[in-house]
Protein backbone atom coordinates (compact mmCIF):
# COMPACT_ATOMS: atom_id res chain seq x y z
CA UNK A 1 0.00 0.00 0.00
CA UNK A 2 2.71 2.43 0.97
CA UNK A 3 4.63 1.53 -2.15
CA UNK A 4 1.68 2.48 -4.35
CA UNK A 5 1.23 5.77 -2.53
CA UNK A 6 4.88 6.58 -2.99
CA UNK A 7 4.58 5.76 -6.70
CA UNK A 8 1.60 8.05 -7.13
CA UNK A 9 3.21 10.90 -5.25
CA UNK A 10 6.41 10.32 -7.18
CA UNK A 11 4.52 10.49 -10.47
CA UNK A 12 2.92 13.79 -9.50
CA UNK A 13 6.25 15.18 -8.35
CA UNK A 14 7.85 14.08 -11.61
CA UNK A 15 5.16 15.79 -13.64
CA UNK A 16 5.45 19.04 -11.71
CA UNK A 17 9.21 18.96 -12.04
CA UNK A 18 8.99 18.29 -15.78
CA UNK A 19 6.47 21.08 -16.26
CA UNK A 20 8.48 23.59 -14.27
CA UNK A 21 11.83 22.76 -15.83
CA UNK A 22 10.42 22.55 -19.36
CA UNK A 23 8.66 25.90 -19.07
CA UNK A 24 11.72 27.58 -17.59
CA UNK A 25 13.90 26.20 -20.36
CA UNK A 26 11.43 27.58 -22.88
CA UNK A 27 11.74 30.97 -21.22
CA UNK A 28 15.52 30.76 -21.29
CA UNK A 29 15.32 29.87 -24.95
CA UNK A 30 13.32 33.00 -25.67
CA UNK A 31 15.87 35.02 -23.74
CA UNK A 32 18.76 33.45 -25.65
CA UNK A 33 17.09 34.17 -28.98
CA UNK A 34 16.50 37.75 -27.87
CA UNK A 35 20.11 38.22 -26.81
CA UNK A 36 21.39 36.81 -30.10
CA UNK A 37 19.15 39.24 -31.94
CA UNK A 38 20.57 42.05 -29.78
CA UNK A 39 17.34 42.54 -27.84
CA UNK A 40 16.74 42.64 -24.14
CA UNK A 41 14.18 39.88 -24.30
CA UNK A 42 11.26 38.82 -22.12
CA UNK A 43 11.83 37.76 -18.51
CA UNK A 44 12.68 34.10 -17.98
CA UNK A 45 9.32 33.44 -16.33
CA UNK A 46 7.44 34.88 -19.31
CA UNK A 47 6.31 31.39 -20.39
CA UNK A 48 4.51 30.90 -17.08
CA UNK A 49 2.64 34.18 -17.56
CA UNK A 50 1.74 33.19 -21.10
CA UNK A 51 0.53 29.79 -19.96
CA UNK A 52 -1.57 31.28 -17.19
CA UNK A 53 -3.07 33.81 -19.55
CA UNK A 54 -3.88 31.14 -22.13
CA UNK A 55 -5.52 29.08 -19.43
CA UNK A 56 -7.66 32.02 -18.33
CA UNK A 57 -8.97 32.69 -21.81
CA UNK A 58 -12.39 31.50 -22.86
CA UNK A 59 -12.57 28.87 -25.55
CA UNK A 60 -15.52 29.00 -27.87
CA UNK A 61 -14.02 27.08 -30.77
CA UNK A 62 -15.53 23.73 -31.48
CA UNK A 63 -14.84 21.64 -34.55
CA UNK A 64 -15.85 18.22 -33.29
CA UNK A 65 -14.67 15.53 -30.90
CA UNK A 66 -11.36 14.77 -32.55
CA UNK A 67 -10.39 18.41 -32.47
CA UNK A 68 -11.00 18.49 -28.73
CA UNK A 69 -9.02 15.29 -28.27
CA UNK A 70 -5.96 16.36 -30.28
CA UNK A 71 -4.21 18.41 -27.58
CA UNK A 72 -5.27 15.79 -25.01
CA UNK A 73 -3.44 13.16 -27.06
CA UNK A 74 -0.37 15.35 -26.98
CA UNK A 75 -0.27 15.74 -23.23
CA UNK A 76 -1.21 12.12 -22.58
CA UNK A 77 1.64 10.86 -24.72
CA UNK A 78 4.05 13.34 -23.12
CA UNK A 79 3.09 12.18 -19.63
CA UNK A 80 3.24 8.52 -20.67
CA UNK A 81 6.73 9.02 -22.03
CA UNK A 82 7.66 10.87 -18.84
CA UNK A 83 6.50 7.98 -16.71
CA UNK A 84 8.79 5.58 -18.53
CA UNK A 85 11.96 7.66 -18.44
CA UNK A 86 13.80 7.42 -15.12
CA UNK A 87 14.55 10.93 -13.96
CA UNK A 88 17.23 10.17 -11.40
CA UNK A 89 19.48 7.19 -10.81
CA UNK A 90 18.72 5.03 -7.75
CA UNK A 91 16.05 7.35 -6.44
CA UNK A 92 12.90 6.18 -4.73
CA UNK A 93 10.81 9.15 -5.80
CA UNK A 94 11.51 9.27 -9.48
CA UNK A 95 11.73 5.61 -10.43
CA UNK A 96 8.31 5.55 -12.10
CA UNK A 97 7.36 2.72 -14.39
CA UNK A 98 10.53 1.32 -15.85
CA UNK A 99 10.39 -2.12 -17.34
CA UNK A 100 12.44 -4.17 -19.76
CA UNK A 101 11.82 -2.99 -23.27
CA UNK A 102 10.91 0.55 -22.31
CA UNK A 103 13.31 1.91 -24.92
CA UNK A 104 11.25 0.27 -27.65
CA UNK A 105 8.04 1.43 -26.01
CA UNK A 106 9.42 4.96 -26.02
CA UNK A 107 10.14 4.89 -29.75
CA UNK A 108 6.45 4.20 -30.30
CA UNK A 109 4.99 6.48 -27.69
CA UNK A 110 7.03 9.47 -28.80
CA UNK A 111 5.22 9.58 -32.14
CA UNK A 112 1.82 8.82 -30.66
CA UNK A 113 1.15 12.36 -29.51
CA UNK A 114 1.93 14.11 -32.79
CA UNK A 115 -0.22 11.55 -34.62
CA UNK A 116 -3.18 12.25 -32.34
CA UNK A 117 -2.63 15.94 -32.84
CA UNK A 118 -2.57 15.34 -36.58
CA UNK A 119 -6.02 13.77 -36.43
CA UNK A 120 -7.28 16.68 -34.35
CA UNK A 121 -5.77 19.21 -36.70
CA UNK A 122 -7.36 17.43 -39.63
CA UNK A 123 -10.81 17.87 -38.21
CA UNK A 124 -10.51 21.63 -37.85
CA UNK A 125 -10.66 21.87 -41.61
CA UNK A 126 -8.07 24.61 -41.68
CA UNK A 127 -5.86 24.19 -44.77
CA UNK A 128 -2.83 25.47 -42.86
CA UNK A 129 -3.27 22.67 -40.34
CA UNK A 130 -3.43 20.06 -43.09
CA UNK A 131 -0.23 21.36 -44.69
CA UNK A 132 1.45 21.46 -41.28
CA UNK A 133 0.48 17.87 -40.61
CA UNK A 134 1.87 16.59 -43.90
CA UNK A 135 5.07 18.51 -43.28
CA UNK A 136 5.34 17.13 -39.77
CA UNK A 137 4.89 13.55 -40.92
CA UNK A 138 7.48 13.97 -43.67
CA UNK A 139 9.92 15.41 -41.19
CA UNK A 140 9.24 12.54 -38.84
CA UNK A 141 10.14 10.10 -41.62
CA UNK A 142 13.40 12.01 -41.82
CA UNK A 143 14.60 12.11 -38.24
CA UNK A 144 13.13 8.84 -36.96
CA UNK A 145 15.57 6.81 -39.05
CA UNK A 146 18.86 8.11 -37.57
CA UNK A 147 17.21 8.20 -34.13
CA UNK A 148 16.14 4.57 -34.26
CA UNK A 149 19.49 3.56 -35.72
CA UNK A 150 21.32 5.20 -32.83
CA UNK A 151 19.12 3.39 -30.32
CA UNK A 152 19.47 0.09 -32.17
CA UNK A 153 23.24 0.46 -32.13
CA UNK A 154 23.13 0.80 -28.36
CA UNK A 155 20.71 -2.07 -27.96
CA UNK A 156 22.96 -4.36 -30.03
CA UNK A 157 26.06 -3.36 -28.14
CA UNK A 158 24.72 -3.88 -24.63
CA UNK A 159 22.10 -6.45 -25.36
CA UNK A 160 19.42 -4.65 -23.41
CA UNK A 161 16.35 -2.55 -24.08
CA UNK A 162 16.00 -1.14 -20.61
CA UNK A 163 17.03 2.42 -19.81
CA UNK A 164 17.85 1.58 -16.20
CA UNK A 165 20.14 -1.23 -17.35
CA UNK A 166 21.92 1.16 -19.68
CA UNK A 167 22.47 3.62 -16.85
CA UNK A 168 23.82 0.87 -14.60
CA UNK A 169 26.16 -0.40 -17.32
CA UNK A 170 27.59 3.08 -17.77
CA UNK A 171 28.22 3.35 -14.08
CA UNK A 172 29.83 -0.07 -13.82
CA UNK A 173 32.16 0.58 -16.73
CA UNK A 174 32.77 4.07 -15.43
CA UNK A 175 32.50 5.58 -18.89
CA UNK A 176 29.56 7.40 -20.40
CA UNK A 177 28.03 6.04 -23.56
CA UNK A 178 28.80 9.27 -25.36
CA UNK A 179 32.46 8.15 -25.23
CA UNK A 180 31.79 4.44 -25.70
CA UNK A 181 29.86 4.98 -28.89
CA UNK A 182 30.23 8.60 -30.04
CA UNK A 183 28.66 7.92 -33.42
CA UNK A 184 25.39 6.90 -31.82
CA UNK A 185 25.37 10.10 -29.81
CA UNK A 186 26.04 12.25 -32.87
CA UNK A 187 23.28 10.53 -34.86
CA UNK A 188 20.86 10.87 -31.97
CA UNK A 189 21.65 14.51 -31.27
CA UNK A 190 21.29 15.41 -34.94
CA UNK A 191 17.94 13.61 -34.96
CA UNK A 192 16.97 15.54 -31.85
CA UNK A 193 17.28 18.78 -33.82
CA UNK A 194 14.28 17.60 -35.79
CA UNK A 195 12.52 16.31 -32.69
CA UNK A 196 12.65 19.69 -30.98
CA UNK A 197 11.29 21.40 -34.09
CA UNK A 198 13.28 24.56 -33.51
CA UNK A 199 14.66 26.48 -36.44
CA UNK A 200 15.77 25.41 -39.04
CA UNK A 201 13.37 22.50 -38.60
CA UNK A 202 10.33 24.48 -37.48
CA UNK A 203 8.59 23.71 -40.74
CA UNK A 204 5.52 22.31 -39.00
CA UNK A 205 4.44 25.34 -37.04
CA UNK A 206 6.07 27.96 -39.23
CA UNK A 207 4.27 31.04 -37.88
CA UNK A 208 4.83 33.35 -40.82
CA UNK A 209 4.26 30.73 -43.44
CA UNK A 210 1.60 28.36 -42.15
CA UNK A 211 0.11 30.47 -39.36
CA UNK A 212 1.44 27.97 -36.80
CA UNK A 213 0.23 24.92 -38.72
CA UNK A 214 -1.67 22.30 -36.71
CA UNK A 215 -2.15 24.78 -33.85
CA UNK A 216 -3.79 27.42 -36.00
CA UNK A 217 -7.35 26.72 -34.88
CA UNK A 218 -6.39 26.21 -31.26
CA UNK A 219 -6.41 29.15 -28.91
CA UNK A 220 -6.85 29.56 -25.19
CA UNK A 221 -6.95 26.35 -23.21
CA UNK A 222 -6.07 24.18 -26.21
CA UNK A 223 -2.91 26.14 -26.68
CA UNK A 224 -2.21 25.95 -22.96
CA UNK A 225 -2.44 22.16 -23.14
CA UNK A 226 -0.18 22.04 -26.16
CA UNK A 227 2.31 24.34 -24.51
CA UNK A 228 2.46 22.24 -21.34
CA UNK A 229 2.74 19.08 -23.39
CA UNK A 230 5.61 20.61 -25.34
CA UNK A 231 7.42 21.60 -22.14
CA UNK A 232 6.98 18.20 -20.54
CA UNK A 233 8.04 16.50 -23.74
CA UNK A 234 11.16 18.63 -24.01
CA UNK A 235 12.07 17.57 -20.49
CA UNK A 236 11.42 13.91 -21.39
CA UNK A 237 13.69 14.05 -24.41
CA UNK A 238 16.49 15.79 -22.54
CA UNK A 239 16.28 13.40 -19.60
CA UNK A 240 16.29 10.45 -21.96
CA UNK A 241 19.45 11.74 -23.59
CA UNK A 242 21.07 12.23 -20.22
CA UNK A 243 20.04 8.74 -19.13
CA UNK A 244 21.27 7.01 -22.25
CA UNK A 245 24.37 8.94 -23.16
CA UNK A 246 25.51 10.87 -20.12
CA UNK A 247 25.18 8.19 -17.49
CA UNK A 248 22.05 9.53 -15.85
CA UNK A 249 22.05 11.94 -12.95
CA UNK A 250 22.32 11.18 -9.27
CA UNK A 251 20.65 14.36 -8.06
CA UNK A 252 18.54 17.17 -9.46
CA UNK A 253 21.35 19.70 -9.78
CA UNK A 254 23.41 17.38 -11.95
CA UNK A 255 20.30 16.63 -13.98
CA UNK A 256 19.58 20.31 -14.56
CA UNK A 257 23.17 21.03 -15.58
CA UNK A 258 23.33 18.12 -18.00
CA UNK A 259 19.91 18.70 -19.53
CA UNK A 260 20.58 22.41 -19.88
CA UNK A 261 23.83 21.84 -21.75
CA UNK A 262 22.08 19.37 -24.05
CA UNK A 263 19.17 21.76 -24.54
CA UNK A 264 21.51 24.49 -25.72
CA UNK A 265 22.53 22.38 -28.75
CA UNK A 266 19.20 22.63 -30.65
CA UNK A 267 18.58 26.14 -29.32
CA UNK A 268 21.91 27.58 -30.43
CA UNK A 269 21.77 25.66 -33.70
CA UNK A 270 18.37 27.19 -34.22
CA UNK A 271 19.04 30.85 -33.49
CA UNK A 272 21.56 31.21 -36.26
CA UNK A 273 19.57 29.35 -38.88
CA UNK A 274 16.62 30.30 -41.05
CA UNK A 275 13.91 27.79 -41.87
CA UNK A 276 14.42 24.84 -44.22
CA UNK A 277 11.94 23.79 -46.80
CA UNK A 278 10.33 20.40 -46.22
CA UNK A 279 12.44 18.48 -48.69
CA UNK A 280 15.60 20.16 -47.43
CA UNK A 281 14.77 19.12 -43.89
CA UNK A 282 14.12 15.52 -44.89
CA UNK A 283 17.24 15.23 -47.02
CA UNK A 284 19.25 16.77 -44.20
CA UNK A 285 18.35 13.85 -41.96
CA UNK A 286 19.06 11.37 -44.71
CA UNK A 287 22.55 12.78 -45.10
CA UNK A 288 25.05 13.03 -42.26
CA UNK A 289 22.77 11.80 -39.44
CA UNK A 290 22.03 8.64 -41.39
CA UNK A 291 25.73 8.10 -42.07
CA UNK A 292 26.50 8.45 -38.39
CA UNK A 293 23.68 6.03 -37.65
CA UNK A 294 25.29 3.44 -39.92
CA UNK A 295 28.70 4.08 -38.39
CA UNK A 296 27.21 3.63 -34.93
CA UNK A 297 25.77 0.25 -35.83
CA UNK A 298 28.99 -0.90 -37.52
CA UNK A 299 30.95 0.32 -34.50
CA UNK A 300 28.78 -1.55 -32.04
CA UNK A 301 28.82 -4.74 -34.07
CA UNK A 302 32.56 -4.93 -34.78
CA UNK A 303 34.23 -3.11 -31.88
Amino acid sequence: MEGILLHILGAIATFLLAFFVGMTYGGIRRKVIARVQNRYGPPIYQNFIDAFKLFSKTTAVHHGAMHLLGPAFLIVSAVMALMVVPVLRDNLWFTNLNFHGDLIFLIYIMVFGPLGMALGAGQTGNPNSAIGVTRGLSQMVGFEIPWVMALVAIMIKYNTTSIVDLMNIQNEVGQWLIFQNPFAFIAAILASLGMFRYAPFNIVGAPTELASGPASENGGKFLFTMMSAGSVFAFVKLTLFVDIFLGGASNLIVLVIKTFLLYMIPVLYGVVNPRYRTEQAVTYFWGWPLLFGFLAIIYSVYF
Partner: protein
Amino acid sequence: MDYGIYQDKLTRIVTDIARSHSLWILAYGTGCGAIEVPATMTSRYDAERLGVRGAATPRQADVLMITGYLTVKTLKRVIRVYEQMQDPKYIIGFGSCAINGGMYWDSYNTIKQLDLYLPVDVYISGCMPRPEAVLEGFAKLQEQIRAGEARGATKYKENLDYYRGNQKKIIKNWDFPDYNW
Protein backbone atom coordinates in the same frame (compact mmCIF):
# COMPACT_ATOMS: atom_id res chain seq x y z
CA MET B 1 -18.32 35.28 6.58
CA ASP B 2 -18.31 34.98 2.83
CA TYR B 3 -14.85 34.56 1.42
CA GLY B 4 -16.16 34.05 -2.10
CA ILE B 5 -16.01 37.72 -2.99
CA TYR B 6 -12.41 38.05 -1.90
CA GLN B 7 -11.51 34.90 -3.74
CA ASP B 8 -13.12 36.23 -6.91
CA LYS B 9 -11.41 39.52 -6.50
CA LEU B 10 -8.02 37.94 -5.95
CA THR B 11 -8.47 35.68 -8.97
CA ARG B 12 -9.44 38.67 -11.06
CA ILE B 13 -6.44 40.68 -9.96
CA VAL B 14 -4.02 37.83 -10.70
CA THR B 15 -5.53 37.02 -14.08
CA ASP B 16 -5.58 40.68 -15.04
CA ILE B 17 -1.90 41.04 -14.21
CA ALA B 18 -1.11 37.93 -16.24
CA ARG B 19 -3.21 39.17 -19.14
CA SER B 20 -1.62 42.58 -19.11
CA HIS B 21 1.86 41.08 -19.26
CA SER B 22 1.14 38.69 -22.06
CA LEU B 23 -0.35 40.46 -25.03
CA TRP B 24 -0.24 38.45 -28.22
CA ILE B 25 -0.92 40.76 -31.07
CA LEU B 26 -2.43 40.11 -34.42
CA ALA B 27 -1.14 42.95 -36.53
CA TYR B 28 -3.69 43.48 -39.21
CA GLY B 29 -1.39 45.26 -41.59
CA THR B 30 -3.59 47.81 -43.25
CA GLY B 31 -2.37 51.22 -44.26
CA CYS B 32 1.08 52.66 -43.91
CA GLY B 33 1.34 52.08 -40.15
CA ALA B 34 2.11 48.39 -40.57
CA ILE B 35 5.71 49.33 -41.25
CA GLU B 36 6.10 50.52 -37.67
CA VAL B 37 5.19 47.15 -36.19
CA PRO B 38 8.43 45.37 -37.19
CA ALA B 39 10.40 48.31 -35.82
CA THR B 40 8.54 47.99 -32.52
CA MET B 41 9.15 44.26 -32.28
CA THR B 42 12.81 44.11 -33.30
CA SER B 43 16.01 44.95 -31.52
CA ARG B 44 15.79 48.73 -31.19
CA TYR B 45 12.50 48.93 -29.32
CA ASP B 46 11.95 45.26 -28.41
CA ALA B 47 8.31 45.06 -27.40
CA GLU B 48 8.78 41.44 -26.31
CA ARG B 49 10.31 42.55 -23.02
CA LEU B 50 6.84 43.85 -22.11
CA GLY B 51 5.31 40.50 -22.97
CA VAL B 52 4.07 41.71 -26.34
CA ARG B 53 4.50 39.09 -28.97
CA GLY B 54 3.12 38.29 -32.38
CA ALA B 55 0.39 35.67 -32.67
CA ALA B 56 -0.04 33.63 -35.79
CA THR B 57 -3.81 33.34 -36.02
CA PRO B 58 -6.88 35.15 -34.65
CA ARG B 59 -7.62 32.16 -32.41
CA GLN B 60 -4.42 32.67 -30.48
CA ALA B 61 -4.36 36.45 -30.37
CA ASP B 62 -5.41 38.85 -27.63
CA VAL B 63 -4.91 42.18 -29.32
CA LEU B 64 -6.01 43.16 -32.78
CA MET B 65 -3.93 45.98 -34.14
CA ILE B 66 -5.44 47.94 -36.97
CA THR B 67 -2.59 49.91 -38.37
CA GLY B 68 -4.14 52.64 -40.46
CA TYR B 69 -6.92 53.27 -42.92
CA LEU B 70 -9.44 50.55 -43.60
CA THR B 71 -11.12 50.20 -46.95
CA VAL B 72 -14.67 48.92 -46.92
CA LYS B 73 -13.50 45.67 -48.44
CA THR B 74 -10.94 45.18 -45.67
CA LEU B 75 -13.36 46.16 -42.95
CA LYS B 76 -15.38 43.07 -43.75
CA ARG B 77 -12.35 40.85 -43.18
CA VAL B 78 -11.35 42.69 -40.04
CA ILE B 79 -14.78 42.17 -38.51
CA ARG B 80 -14.58 38.49 -39.33
CA VAL B 81 -11.12 38.27 -37.79
CA TYR B 82 -12.22 40.11 -34.68
CA GLU B 83 -15.15 37.82 -34.14
CA GLN B 84 -12.92 34.77 -34.43
CA MET B 85 -10.72 35.91 -31.59
CA GLN B 86 -11.28 34.43 -28.15
CA ASP B 87 -12.26 36.49 -25.12
CA PRO B 88 -10.76 38.57 -23.57
CA LYS B 89 -9.75 40.54 -26.63
CA TYR B 90 -8.70 44.10 -27.24
CA ILE B 91 -8.33 46.40 -30.21
CA ILE B 92 -5.66 49.01 -30.75
CA GLY B 93 -6.44 51.61 -33.40
CA PHE B 94 -3.32 52.94 -34.94
CA GLY B 95 -2.79 56.32 -36.59
CA SER B 96 -5.09 59.17 -37.37
CA CYS B 97 -6.76 57.27 -40.20
CA ALA B 98 -8.34 54.90 -37.69
CA ILE B 99 -9.36 57.75 -35.40
CA ASN B 100 -11.05 60.16 -37.76
CA GLY B 101 -10.12 59.30 -41.30
CA GLY B 102 -6.88 61.24 -41.28
CA MET B 103 -5.80 62.28 -44.72
CA TYR B 104 -8.30 59.85 -46.21
CA TRP B 105 -11.27 61.55 -44.62
CA ASP B 106 -12.98 62.29 -47.93
CA SER B 107 -11.95 59.12 -49.66
CA TYR B 108 -14.67 57.24 -51.49
CA ASN B 109 -13.99 53.81 -50.09
CA THR B 110 -12.33 53.99 -46.69
CA ILE B 111 -14.11 54.24 -43.37
CA LYS B 112 -13.51 57.31 -41.29
CA GLN B 113 -14.10 56.30 -37.72
CA LEU B 114 -13.15 52.80 -36.64
CA ASP B 115 -15.01 53.14 -33.35
CA LEU B 116 -18.34 52.98 -35.14
CA TYR B 117 -17.72 49.48 -36.39
CA LEU B 118 -15.53 47.81 -33.78
CA PRO B 119 -14.92 48.64 -30.11
CA VAL B 120 -11.49 50.22 -29.85
CA ASP B 121 -9.76 50.09 -26.48
CA VAL B 122 -6.73 52.23 -27.18
CA TYR B 123 -6.01 54.72 -29.92
CA ILE B 124 -2.48 55.67 -30.80
CA SER B 125 -2.39 59.01 -32.53
CA GLY B 126 0.08 60.13 -35.14
CA CYS B 127 0.52 59.84 -38.84
CA MET B 128 2.26 57.49 -38.49
CA PRO B 129 3.01 56.92 -34.78
CA ARG B 130 6.62 56.21 -33.96
CA PRO B 131 7.54 53.00 -32.11
CA GLU B 132 7.81 54.96 -28.87
CA ALA B 133 4.19 55.96 -29.27
CA VAL B 134 3.24 52.35 -30.01
CA LEU B 135 4.97 51.19 -26.84
CA GLU B 136 3.15 53.95 -24.97
CA GLY B 137 -0.08 52.59 -26.40
CA PHE B 138 0.74 49.11 -25.16
CA ALA B 139 1.54 50.49 -21.72
CA LYS B 140 -1.80 52.28 -21.73
CA LEU B 141 -3.59 49.07 -22.65
CA GLN B 142 -1.78 47.20 -19.90
CA GLU B 143 -2.87 49.84 -17.40
CA GLN B 144 -6.44 49.56 -18.59
CA ILE B 145 -6.42 45.77 -18.32
CA ARG B 146 -5.01 45.88 -14.81
CA ALA B 147 -7.67 48.39 -13.80
CA GLY B 148 -10.32 46.17 -15.39
CA GLU B 149 -11.35 48.89 -17.81
CA ALA B 150 -10.48 47.29 -21.14
CA ARG B 151 -14.02 46.12 -21.73
CA GLY B 152 -14.22 46.55 -25.50
CA ALA B 153 -15.31 42.99 -26.18
CA THR B 154 -18.10 43.14 -23.60
CA LYS B 155 -19.24 46.44 -25.04
CA TYR B 156 -19.35 44.88 -28.47
CA LYS B 157 -21.50 42.01 -27.28
CA GLU B 158 -23.85 44.24 -25.35
CA ASN B 159 -24.30 46.67 -28.22
CA LEU B 160 -24.12 44.17 -31.03
CA ASP B 161 -27.19 45.59 -32.76
CA TYR B 162 -25.66 49.04 -32.88
CA TYR B 163 -22.37 47.80 -34.31
CA ARG B 164 -24.08 45.43 -36.74
CA GLY B 165 -26.29 48.27 -37.91
CA ASN B 166 -23.29 50.46 -38.62
CA GLN B 167 -21.45 47.65 -40.31
CA LYS B 168 -24.36 46.71 -42.53
CA LYS B 169 -24.83 50.34 -43.50
CA ILE B 170 -21.44 50.44 -45.11
CA ILE B 171 -20.90 46.87 -46.26
CA LYS B 172 -23.33 46.37 -49.10
CA ASN B 173 -22.96 42.68 -49.88
CA TRP B 174 -23.45 41.39 -46.35
CA ASP B 175 -23.08 37.60 -46.31
CA PHE B 176 -21.77 36.82 -42.84
CA PRO B 177 -22.82 33.93 -40.68
CA ASP B 178 -24.32 35.01 -37.37
CA TYR B 179 -21.85 35.79 -34.66
CA ASN B 180 -21.45 32.88 -32.31
CA TRP B 181 -19.08 33.12 -29.40
